[in-house]
């Protein structure tokens, strides 16, 4: 191109830009520089974008972190613990057999759209969650998970009905008592939403479309009762802004605006915090904890509410059906060393398949003593010396209970090999087949774990061993598999809390001493980090922090 033509094109481009400029108008309100008020903005770095804003269909932590600030459940969780406390309901009492629960509601709550919160709203919510179309039944994952079924299959549903007996009193009927109810009402998915907004936004209008689901408008226009209201999701810039709800029934939030910024890369989140452009982020890498503290940030360590275990599959490897073999492997692992060298500060050796914060935890159980010599003897007695084990770990994943799966695996593998076990290394990526393979029983042994949804023993050991046909431990191959599943269900149905806890404590002892379906390894505390000047963050074992108590430097 000659200089003349270059000049001509440049001029043309400038003219075009000028013409376009005359058609584009700024949407800015005069005098408003953005932001929502004068009490500061708390900016939190999120690892991923939220899926949507209707918690009922949501499944992942990044979504719940956002919706938790806008929605509340009938029951809440005491900040800093896993304990159930009143939230929108002030009291709840069961009938004698634990099937009818009467909830007394707060009488001073309104939804963000001005609609009153009352017993009718509660029942409208339950009915909305129960009455899902085919797509909704698959997408409404948490309801399916805790309630078992939907309106088209009432016989298999825990939820049966809801009745508004008074303006602020609702009675919920369930099919049978369980430790999960009403604790499950603390689940973010089961939050209370404005019935009017649900109806107007056609909240249940979900449809299967091609290889996904299409969601109704409501999923992006959520209306709850919480301390923050929905502001805007700027998808192109990866920010979600929430504004303080000045009509909140409780103490108003300390900051006027709460912003979540999507920053997928962990080291970038750290750099953003160091540059002062965000005020905090979740799950800092444990190797950075000290450095972060030294540069004036504060690393808030949560109590562990998870378990890392080594799962067995006696179905694929019959040698594992021998209790002596499992006991040998149990004492072959040096848990103390593993916790000290591979896991972050505050991690603990597991003595059973649940952390101590859960009711039903058996305080008398001791961690198995590390004894490789005895392990070899036991293996010899079982005729399994030199046994071969396909043992797997996942890649491309970091979970609160296993920050670095490969490192944990290497430590476990070294211990197993030290007692003469031939380990055949297997691996797959987390979303690329690992979970499928575990469920399909393709490995003799594997590492996996669980983070609790709420304070219920059944949410841990019931999930692991309560369903004989569908569990990753292959307990159906064991003579005691059925008994264990039955015992768990029976304990779960005990109405009296103390009695129920005692029953679970006994089962925990039995699991560790008689059955040993797998090896509980450790509980690892996840942390979050906030920058200088941020106060009021209360770390939650359930990673369910509420940011209304947070204030930002000087304000």
């Amino acid at each position: 191109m000659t200089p003349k033509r270059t000049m001509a094109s440049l001029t043309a481009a400038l003219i075009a830009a000028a013409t376009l400029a005359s058609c584009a108008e700024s949407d800015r309100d005069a005098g408003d520089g953005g932001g929502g008020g004068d009490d500061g903005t708390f900016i939190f770095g999120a690892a991923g974008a939220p899926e949507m804003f209707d918690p009922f269909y949501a499944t992942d932590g990044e979504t719940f972190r956002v919706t938790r600030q806008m929605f509340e459940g009938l029951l809440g969780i005491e900040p800093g613990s896993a304990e159930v406390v009143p939230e929108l309901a002030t009291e709840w009492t069961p009938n004698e057999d634990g099937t009818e629960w009467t909830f007394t509601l707060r009488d001073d709550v309104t939804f963000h759209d001005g609609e009153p919160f009352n017993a009718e709203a509660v029942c409208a919510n339950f009915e909305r969650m129960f009455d899902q179309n085919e797509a909704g039944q698959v997408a409404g994952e948490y309801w399916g998970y805790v309630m078992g079924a939907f309106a088209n299959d009432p016989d298999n549903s825990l939820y049966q009905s809801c009745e508004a007996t008074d303006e602020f009193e609702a009675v919920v009927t369930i099919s049978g008592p369980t430790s999960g109810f009403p604790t499950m009402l603390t689940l973010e998915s089961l939050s209370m939403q404005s019935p009017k907004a649900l109806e107007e936004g056609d909240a249940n209008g979900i449809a299967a479309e091609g290889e996904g689901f299409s969601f109704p408008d409501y999923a992006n226009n959520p209306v709850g009762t919480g301390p923050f209201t929905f502001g805007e999701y700027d998808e192109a810039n990866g920010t979600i802004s929430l504004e303080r709800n000045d009509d909140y029934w409780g103490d108003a939030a300390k900051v006027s605006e709460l912003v979540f910024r999507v920053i997928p890369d962990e080291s970038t989140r750290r750099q953003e915090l160091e540059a002062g452009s965000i005020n905090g982020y979740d799950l800092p890498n444990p190797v950075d904890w000290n450095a972060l503290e030294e540069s004036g940030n504060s690393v808030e360590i949560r109590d562990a509410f998870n378990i890392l275990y080594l799962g067995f599959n006696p179905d694929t490897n019959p040698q594992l059906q021998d209790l002596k073999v499992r006991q040998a492997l149990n004492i072959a692992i040096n848990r103390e060393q593993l916790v000290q060298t591979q896991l972050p500060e505050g991690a603990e050796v597991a003595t059973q398949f649940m952390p101590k914060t859960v009711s039903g935890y058996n305080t008398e159980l001791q961690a198995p003593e590390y004894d490789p010599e005895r392990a070899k003897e036991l293996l010899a007695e079982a005729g399994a010396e030199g046994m071969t084990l396909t043992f797997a770990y996942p890649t491309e994943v970091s979970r609160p209970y296993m920050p670095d799966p490969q490192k944990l695996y290497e430590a476990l593998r070294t211990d197993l090999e030290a007692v003469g076990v031939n380990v055949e290394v297997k691996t797959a990526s987390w979303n690329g087949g690992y979970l499928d393979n575990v469920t399909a029983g393709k490995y003799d042994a594997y590492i996996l774990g669980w983070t609790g949804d709420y304070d219920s023993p059944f949410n841990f050991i019931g999930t692991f061993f309560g369903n004989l046909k569908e569990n990753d431990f292959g307990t159906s191959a064991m003579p005691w598999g059925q008994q264990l599943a039955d015992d768990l269900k029976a304990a779960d149905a005990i109405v009296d809390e103390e009695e129920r806890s005692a029953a679970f404590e006994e089962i925990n002892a039995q699991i560790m001493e008689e059955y040993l379906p797998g090896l509980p390894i450790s509980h690892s505390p996840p942390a979050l980090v906030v920058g200088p000047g941020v106060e009021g963050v209360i770390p939650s074992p359930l990673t369910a922090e509420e940011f209304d108590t947070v204030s930002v430097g000087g304000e």
Partner: protein
Amino acid sequence: MLRFVLRRLIQMVGVVLVLSVLVFVWLRSLPGGPVSALLGERGTPERRAALEKALGLDQPLPVQYLRYMERAVQGDFGVSTKVLPGEDALDIFFARLPATIELSFFALVIAIALGIPLGYLAARRKGTPLDTTTVIFSLVGVAVPVFFTGFLLKYFFAVEWNLLPVSGRQSTGLDATRVTGLFVLDGILTREWDAAWDALKHLVLPAVALATIPFAVIFRITRASVLDVLDEDYVRTAEAKGLTAQVIRGRHVLRNAILPVVTTVGLQVGALLSGAVLTETVFSIRGIGDALATAFRDKDYPVLQVLIIAAAAIYVLVNLLVDIAYAVIDPRIRTR
């Protein structure tokens, strides 16, 4: 010329069709899938089966493909399962495209603006310290991975010296008006100068990080090409004719040396698209690359299909444009 363009466009349709089959089959042959990604630890066989059925993944592959194509010809490429659940996959592509265009454009401008003049200078001053330094510099550009370059740039320019923002496209709370999705252009069009300036500042580091490889390639090709041309008889003849150095450089050396460079620039668009995956992740830019990374991790088939095929189509299209540019620069190609 028109026939040439038409023929190439028809070829492009063929490429896209073949690619759609390959991508469809390839994605589904990978272990795992959207069901694992959606259910995580909570996936019991029963719930996996229900979800698989709801998503139509329980059908044989050919049936799945035919269903997909049936919808695709009507412009329906399916909805996202995880990147932005429920959103039309094609809409996600268009929503994410401006960020990637903006980033790639600035990266390309940097690569060309530095690569061609420096390549030319290095050739003219072959063997001098300037030549050696720039050659080493370009080698480093190719050798160092983008995420590391990105990390260092962020560390010094954003964290240590606080000159530029760490990541993202625009500061929070700026209240910028969106017109085209190209943030810098939007700021100019709406005369929100602070928004344009803010977006530009956000672009500097990622664009530099992304530009390193194209810069190195353009620089080296320019240098080699100029060196070749400088040896040609016609340059010597021009010198003997007594033409001024300026005329020789402009009319004979640069014009002839630039042809291979133009081809290279076209090919670099592919490199930019693949580089964008890492750059966008490291700099939290919500573009095609970031969507690809998320979709791949979570096995979001509809989004992956649209993004991969669209990226390929863009690549083919850009190379078509390069061929046209070629024809403009070199009249001999037009007549062939």
